């Protein structure tokens, strides 16, 4: 019998777990719930799990630190966090404008030094033939912008905005 503990991170959520193994079965405590399960590999990317007596087909793949799972028609992404820690991802700094998806910065509508109001259009990111307008989330001054034509990953900072004490229109 062995006993392991850890923290499962999914998006902004962290769930601590304890797994107790006993032969081919295990008991997992996740959050406040207890699940008796056994898991058997079926084929590459496919597991047969039994959870509290029910069959589950689990499709899965690891991609870097992410583990992608598909169970009963829904896809999930998990990674391992450190016990007691919740900082699995760098928090998004409010004001920095990030690419909503991988794509190309097709047009930049502001320049450094310009002040903007919340909701102002800042730049356009294009991917899969669709344009997406990135808007300011709060008022401030543009510090840095991305060169149009640059290919960016999802979440990359495309415009840096510094908070100012007054709004762009001087209120």
């Amino acid at each position, binding site marked *: 019998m062995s006993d392991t503990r850890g923290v499962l991170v999914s998006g902004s959520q962290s769930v601590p777990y304890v797994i107790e193994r006993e032969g081919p079965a295990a008991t997992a405590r996740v959050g406040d719930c207890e699940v008796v399960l056994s898991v058997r*590999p079926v084929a*590459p990317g496919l597991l047969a799990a039994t959870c509290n007596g029910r069959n589950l087909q*689990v*499709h899965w*793949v690891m991609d870097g630190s992410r583990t992608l799972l598909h*169970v009963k028609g829904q*896809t999930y992404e998990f990674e391992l966090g450190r016990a007691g820690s919740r900082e699995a991802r760098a928090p998004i700094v409010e004001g920095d404008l990030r690419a909503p*998806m991988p794509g190309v910065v097709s047009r930049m509508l502001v320049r450094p030094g310009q002040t903007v109001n919340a909701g102002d259009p800042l730049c356009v990111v294009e*991917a*899969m033939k669709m344009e997406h307008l990135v808007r300011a989330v709060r008022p401030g001054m543009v510090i840095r912008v991305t060169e149009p034509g640059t290919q960016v990953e999802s979440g990359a900072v495309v415009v840096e905005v510094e908070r100012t004490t007054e709004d762009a229109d001087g209120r």
Partner: protein
Amino acid sequence: MGAVDFTKILVANRGEIAVRIIRACRELGIATVAVYSEADALAPHMLLADEAVLLGPPEPAQSYLHIGRVVEAARRTGAQAVHPGYGFLSENPDFAAACGEADLTFIGPPPAVIRALGDKSRARRLAAAVGVPIVPGVDDPGSAEGALREAALRLGLPVLLKAAAGGGGKGMRTVRDAADLEIQAQGARREAAAAFGDDTLLIEKLIERPRHIEVQILADAHGNIVHLGERECSVQRRHQKVVEESPSPLADDPFRAALGEAAVRVARAAGYVNAGTVEFLVDDRRSFHFLEVNTRLQVEHPVTELVAGVDLVQAQIRVAAGEVLDLRQDDVSLRGWAVECRVYAEDPEAGFAPSPGRVLHLHEPQLPGVRVDSGIRAGQDIPVHYDPILSKVIAWAPTRSAAIRRMAQALREYVILGPRTNLLYLRAIVEHPAFAAGDLSTQFLPDHLGDWRPPAPPPEVLAVAATLLESNRHAPGSSRRRRAGAIAASPAFADPWDCLRGWRPS
């Protein structure tokens, strides 16, 4: 019907529709040539065809939109005809004309018909001339400063900006506030130029909460035209169709007959040949208004195929080869109900942002009454350069409710790991009570699923995930490599915990 008069066809498209067309050709005993860009070097359509010709770099203008290169590929491989699919060059009259000049049969209407109907304003006038009601609008308000605003205000807000040359939601914007007119028009013009090579816009009065209902027509070069019933495509996100069905829950027999008759009248007036779709908006009093004619195969053509029992792609090829239509209007009988869901590489949790990337794991549903028209394969890198459509799931059943249940089941069994997809969102749509009630409009999604979020993982999923991640925690190289579960060397009931370790591509 015997053999078709072509021995080799070039398919000027990619993705699921190219795969669909290649298969139709193969059933007719016709060899196929695929074209592909550098981004599609090992894409399914390119692998499936008998021959494949590289067009150029990923950018559409350098590959799938490059008329000269596509025609040259057909010439070099000895193809006699070109099937354009949908999107790309499918509604480009210059391409159809270039095919003709190169002695290639363009599988679609004659260039003049594409040109006439592709100009949305001419199409509207044509429909009006034969007594088919149209949506109030202003054709080509011009690009002069203020002209657009004036036209919009004359019609009265809200209005819809549309690419005059367009279709499929590209270059389409709803404007409710005059202050947004300019920026929205610029965006629409840019998208229109990129997608269709023409930035002319059209303004229409917005019909609030309309239903989008369209009629499939099929015409031969000998004057025979039939319609194959209607499709309802009201479930749209930003003018992009998401779920389609045939028949429409709104239509009864008299409505269907009237709509079909109107569609055939427009087609006949245009001198239409080959397969086409006449689109209508239906308002809350069940009045229909002509919208436009799509002079090509539609994405959603399979729902008609399943209900009418006709293979539209094969029919297109036969008609293009000069054959006489083998069915008359009286022969058309519609049976049961078909629903289609479009699977997109997009992330519903992040504002439906496109989600390209590698397909790490793929399992497509295979159940009775379900058809999957897929353009992807495991291991493929979904390129950032093209439409986010990955595949289409189509479910047929004797009744609408059975077709919906079947669709939900198919969506549950569809596994795509890697790019994020709208699969769960699609299931939320078809399982929504308002969808079951057939209570549809183009505002269906904002009305009913505007704040949709996926459910949190249930305890058993957390338990499985924890077990899986624990088992792989200390595996060598696990941090940067892709892995999936190995086939157990020993049969079932062997100690499983060691076997959860993944494999790495060598």
